[in-house]
């Protein structure tokens, strides 16, 4: 068994190595942009806004030197599902109709399907860009800064930011633990056969046992971390450097607002690709 082609795994919450202008942007900017664009696309899911946002994502990916390898391999069932959806939608026909010789082919249905697919892909790409270019250490402080206005509503934003920071810290440790847990499960023999009713019961019991083991381990880790928090006199600062936007961030904001604004204006005023 020599070097076989492997499936590329999904790598979570680890930035692509490198220091590019996109990496240097404040995490809060990226979160705000992603949130804003998501809202925009839910209100105006037309071809033009989708294309504009797609172009933004691609430009950002190019600027951040994201290689193609960062994309995880797409499992085969997803392709099958997409093909199935595309074929059924294509059969529905509808305007616009293209005449090829004597046959009239309606592309309306297919276009609707493609638009929904493109919308999902663009939204996923937005989230992926944040996770590919942002150090997890910057996310919680950025959330604390962004959420500052909510403090006036007596919403415990700082508490949430601390929980988020600890969660992101615990993330890799828990992934490791779940990996071991899963491996330990694989090492076990298949349970002995018994009557069908008994088998159902036993497999339910097995799932419960797995969940229980995972939770017990996680809670123990939580208690230990809690001790460490107490030993530091409770919560307080979570970052050594101040977390706030710089000039580049305002520029990025401006670009995003201009592009998205132009797309929406064109969409609403000139030609509607939404309806």
């Amino acid at each position, binding site marked *: 068994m020599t070097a076989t082609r492997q499936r590329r795994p999904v790598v979570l919450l680890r930035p692509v190595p490198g220091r590019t202008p996109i990496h240097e942007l404040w995490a809060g900017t990226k979160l705000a942009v992603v949130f804003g664009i998501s809202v925009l696309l839910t209100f105006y899911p037309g071809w033009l806004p989708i294309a504009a946002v797609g172009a933004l994502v691609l430009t950002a990916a190019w600027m951040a030197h994201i290689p193609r390898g960062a994309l995880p391999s797409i499992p085969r069932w997803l392709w099958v599902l997409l093909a199935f959806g595309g074929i059924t939608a294509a059969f529905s026909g509808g305007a616009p109709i293209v005449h090829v010789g004597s046959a009239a082919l309606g592309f309306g249905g297919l276009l609707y399907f493609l638009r929904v697919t493109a919308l999902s892909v663009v939204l996923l790409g937005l989230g992926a860009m944040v996770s590919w270019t942002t150090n997890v250490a910057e996310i919680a402080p950025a959330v604390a800064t962004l959420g500052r206005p909510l403090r006036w509503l007596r919403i415990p934003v700082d508490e949430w930011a601390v929980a988020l920071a*600890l969660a992101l810290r615990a993330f890799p440790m828990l992934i490791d633990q779940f990996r071991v847990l899963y491996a330990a499960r694989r090492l076990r023999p298949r349970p002995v056969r018994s009557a069908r009713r008994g088998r159902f019961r036993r497999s339910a019991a097995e799932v419960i046992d797995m969940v229980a083991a995972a939770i017990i381990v996680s809670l123990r880790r939580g208690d230990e971390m809690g001790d460490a928090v107490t030993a530091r006199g409770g919560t307080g600062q979570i970052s050594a450097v101040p977390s706030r936007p710089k000039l580049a961030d305002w520029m990025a904001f401006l670009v995003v607002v201009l592009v998205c604004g132009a797309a929406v204006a064109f969409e609403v005023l000139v030609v509607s690709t939404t309806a």
Partner: protein
Amino acid sequence: MAALSAATAIIAVVVPFAAGLSLLGTVPMGILAYRYRLRVLLAATVAGGLIAFLVAGMGGLMTVVHCAYIGGMTGIVKRRRRGTATVVVAALCAGVVVGAMSVLALAVLSRLRMLIFNSLTANVDGAAAVLRRIPHMEIAAARLKEIFAAALHYWPWLIGGSSMLSVLVVSLIGWWALSRVLRRLFVIPDVHQLETPVDDGPIAPVPVRLEDVRFRYPGAAHDALGPLSLTLEPGEHVAVTGANGSGKTTLMLILAGREVSSGEVERPGSVGLGKLGGTAVIMQHPESQVLGTRVADDVVWGLPPGAHIDVGRLLEEVGLDGLAERDTGGLSGGELQRLAVAAALAREPSLLIADEVTSMVDQQGRDALLGVLSRLKDRHRMALVHITHYNNEAGFAERVINLTGNGADDNTEMVQIAAPPRASSISAGAGRPVLQLRGVGHEYSSGTPWATTALRDVSFSVNQGDGVLIHGGNGSGKSTLAWIMAGLTVPTTGECLLDGRPAADQVGAVAISFQAARLQLMRTRVDREVASAAGFSPYDRRRVEAALATVGLDTGLAGRRIDQLSGGQMRRVVLAGLLARSPRALILDEPLAGLDAASQRGLLRLLEDLRRRSGLTVVVISHDFVGLEELCPRTLHLSGGVLQGASEAPGRSGAAGRSA
């Protein structure tokens, strides 16, 4: 509150994972709602939702909200001791709210609604068009189109009603399933130790004087500590030694402000746990000590807002200079503990307590950490209490307090530390080869920008009845090697053969015991655990007892709950289950970590016996050496993913067996 925020964090991480299997995410949420206030559940939902959003977009966020709703409702209803009727009422209310909200959202987002509806119509129409071509299906096709068109026409009622109904159904199913799971989990004890002392006033933890102090945990039959009298002066360096169960950790808790059962504790001011000029505590588990994701962030973590410290100077003092921007995830155990020291020093404490800080750190890390601790006195005026079960570490201190303990008579000796033996020749002994590795290399996340090479061109073989020690430091790739040998990981290059066939095709034939024994124990009771791991019926008492006897456990333990076992017993129960399947080889990953001297010795003697008597093939992965010469006559050194030949072995010759 600290334990809560940590528990929140843990659960916030578990939830997005559970996005695939919705029920899983509701379980931790349920526990949180049962144990703590709504506010905690809310914080967990926000943190979990944000992570899920980053990982899986909007869908992930919705799943988390969903889990929080079901888990939260079940947990709260359970805590208030209400029943199904309450759940139905709550679910109806929630259903109305959700239904109204989804209709409202779709009414406002008219363009998105049109797109979704048109797209769905296209799919249905297309399916109908295909159906129409099939003979006798014309009517069905027409009906399908009609029904769908009618449904879309009345969409507010349809969507509102179906949301309501689905919320109700999901709530009831969730309640039913979750009640069963949670019943088992509610009894998990809260194992946190430190509590924020309630005293206010000026902070001055030293000098402290203990007079006939005794401590008994609530519900325990014996005193965990005492009677004990001692004084601790400012600037003093004291080592506290004693076996497991002698009350070392209890003493730490008392010094950190825990109320004693009887006797007197005198100090000039309050303890000030974690406060500037107060008491700082560093504990055993390196990974749990460090709370920041970046080194510099961890140093300031938890400091009051506005407090400024010189991070660079502190990192330099603990020998981590230049690492401020590094991720804490990539640090070794020893580096993590030194970072914890830096975080403690950021508070300029008057009293620093180090509780068995070296027990989970490899030899190199231990030396560096001890060096840092012993130099602290030169720069700071602080009392240092170093709790340890390693005899050589007590030597640094000015004074040693030896706790003899109460009733802890079974393990009274201290752990010895040995130097690494020389790497022996790579060629194997006499027996038939069991495991053969040929040019094995492994790369994680290959093909992506995060690709990291863990192993490079590793070749060796393990013969029948061999005892091999694979030794390497942090990040040497030794765990990856263990996973490959057990068939759990397929190497990216080269091959790992078990009896001539790829090991990955025979998962389970090679047994592996992981460092975290608790993760390998999945059943609630010892007998069920052993039976499940070995693959026989739990009612087969004879075989369960035989399996327990193999690892020297009393058969009376069979009915014991897993959570009531000691660390050493857990490891033996794991071994009992593994050995009952007569594995071709047994791999042990850090088998001695976290065990006290007597348990270590007992386990080693057991393994030596098994190897000698039943010809068991043993591979040990460890950074510890003591006593392993007998079990593993052959040693391979792994460094940076490469196997070091005998000639390149670290040259600490003549030091083997030296007890420091």
